[in-house]
């Protein structure tokens, strides 16, 4: 009994710093945010009093007639019916964005990892070169890709012109614009996936492959029956994390497309940011967005884990 207490005491001591920091800096604002989403709090009505101060003179205060008040579910209704903001458009964009990015991250990462898992000359060079994008800060990458896709002065259109094709107006259409952001994000995110999957591959017992080959299995069969199942633990983790990170990936959309054309490529997080910071700051609206985003991801994570649990993975 005493030993259990001792163990728990040590455990708690070890996690305490993390718990405190997260509690104060993330949970407290989170809870406050949820509370705020049920009010109409914004920058101008957050004060109880409106005071006018004259420089070097008197200050007169009067109570704020418009002070923030509880509005129940009004914000949620407004957002979900489209009366304010563009929730459904942004949700569709976010889903397309997330699915495309994660599929490409995983697919390309897996392909490269499989290739790099063999022994051949120059392997370390390729490995280093292919992981290098990970070291590039995301806003640098965003600006670089925006520049590359620039309709007039960018290299991609320049190359198209050079070989006689028409340049593409990337940011004029919603889906081509989203495409540019997906390209940038895939470029940025593949190294992480590749490295994780490479590690996973290397932990699969090589004997299994040899045995399968002897038994006459084709490369594809080997891949499907040995590699993929062998990678499942790693895959499930990186896909879960990758989905959450991509869903909330702010800098790429914000800096590459800037929501162009006409706000049609905004995703939920950039939409929430604009609600929070552009114009009179609408804290309650931003909090509403935040709660909706969080809910979607929580549901996703819950479903994901349940599906995995059914397949025998233990989280």
């Amino acid at each position, binding site marked *: 009994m005493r030993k259990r207490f001792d163990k728990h005491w040590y455990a708690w001591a070890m*996690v305490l710093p993390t718990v405190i920091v*997260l509690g104060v800096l993330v949970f407290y604002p989170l809870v406050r945010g949820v509370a705020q989403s049920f009010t109409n709090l914004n920058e101008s009505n957050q004060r109880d009093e409106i005071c006018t101060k004259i420089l070097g003179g008197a200050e007169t205060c009067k109570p704020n007639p418009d002070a923030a008040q509880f509005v129940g579910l009004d914000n949620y209704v407004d957002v979900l019916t489209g009366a304010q903001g563009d929730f459904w458009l942004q949700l569709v964009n976010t889903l397309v964005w997330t699915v495309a990015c994660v599929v490409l991250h995983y697919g390309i990462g897996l392909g490269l990892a499989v290739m790099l898992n063999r022994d051949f000359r120059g392997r370390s060079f390729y490995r280093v*070169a292919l992981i290098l994008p990970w070291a*590039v800060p995301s806003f640098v990458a965003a*600006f670089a890709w925006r520049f590359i896709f620039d309709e007039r002065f960018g290299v991609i259109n320049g190359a198209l012109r050079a070989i006689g094709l028409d340049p593409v107006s990337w940011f004029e259409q919603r889906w081509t614009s989203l495409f540019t952001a997906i390209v940038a994000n895939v470029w940025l995110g593949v190294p992480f996936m590749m490295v*994780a999957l490479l590690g996973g591959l290397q*932990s699969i017992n090589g004997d299994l492959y040899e045995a399968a080959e002897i038994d006459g299995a084709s490369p594809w069969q080997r891949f499907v029956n040995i590699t993929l199942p062998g990678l499942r633990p790693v895959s499930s983790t990186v896909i879960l994390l990758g989905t959450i990170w991509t869903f909330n990936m*702010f800098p790429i959309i914000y800096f590459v497309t800037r929501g162009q054309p006409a706000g049609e490529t905004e995703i939920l997080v950039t939409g929430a940011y604009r609600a929070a910071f552009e114009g009179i700051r609408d804290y309650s609206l931003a909090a509403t967005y935040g709660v909706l985003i969080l809910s979607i991801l929580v549901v996703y994570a819950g479903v994901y884990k349940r599906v995995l649990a059914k397949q025998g993975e233990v989280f």
Partner: protein
Amino acid sequence: MGELMPEAIQPATIEGAQALERLRLPHVRRGRSTLASVGLHATLVVATFCALFPIAWVVLSSIKPASEIRRSEIHVFASPTLENYRTLLTGTDFPYWFLNSVIVAAFTMVFGIAMSATAGYALSRFNFPGKRGLMWTFLLTQMFPVAILIVPIYTIMANLGLIDTKASLVIAYLTVAVPFCAWMLRGYFDTIPRELDEAAALDGLGPYATFWRVVLPLARPGIAVTAFYTFLTAWAEVAYAIAFMQSSRNYTLGAGLQQFVPQFSPRWELLTAGAVLVTLPAALVFFFAQRHLVAGLTAGGTKG
């Protein structure tokens, strides 16, 4: 390893086993066909080109004079000059930003590793009340968008008197990096056998000592990943840096470089030069850590 093996694919016959043995003999070389080899290299070359091209383009742009960077006719080289670097280093506060970023990143690394490692170890070894809740928390905190947290966290920092100090950034970055690293390190620690812990306990070491002297040294790859990740988080972050730091001399690199690309009249020449100088240290840290990256992420991912 049990769960990694599907229905066992083992040689079913003695002949098969003997064949396997023969394959292991050095003189039987199982070469790859030339076509496959060419295909492999071709694909990798294309992939490498895609990976390196944007970086190369930024580097090339950084040595063009300002008026040449955005031109209707695109040239690879155009009056190469180091003028942008000179302006950046002498005419702006870039050296201060660089120093600030180094300090913030270093502290984030140190504290990040400390917190993630202890938390990860506790999650791995101990079954304490609130463990599942904590694991969910680590996942949850990655789901709430940063954009919405900026103003509340600013207010908290203001109340603590930390605005315009590097401490505010370090703390904020820890909230971003620690959840993922703790999660990952937990998985990594899980692969280190508990027998070591028990042996240490028998030797009379307390939990902290076991952690510090026995388990941690074996976790080098996982620590390397944590170091890299926390460093990159602190090094590349922009939103908090802009919000919390007021005077130009206190900016970190993310905040400082942002100034060069306002919506109108961006100064691409300074941004590209800055981007190169920002990526170099990150690449450097990466080179040190990369040997361990594969191993670290593996084991961390294996057990989720």
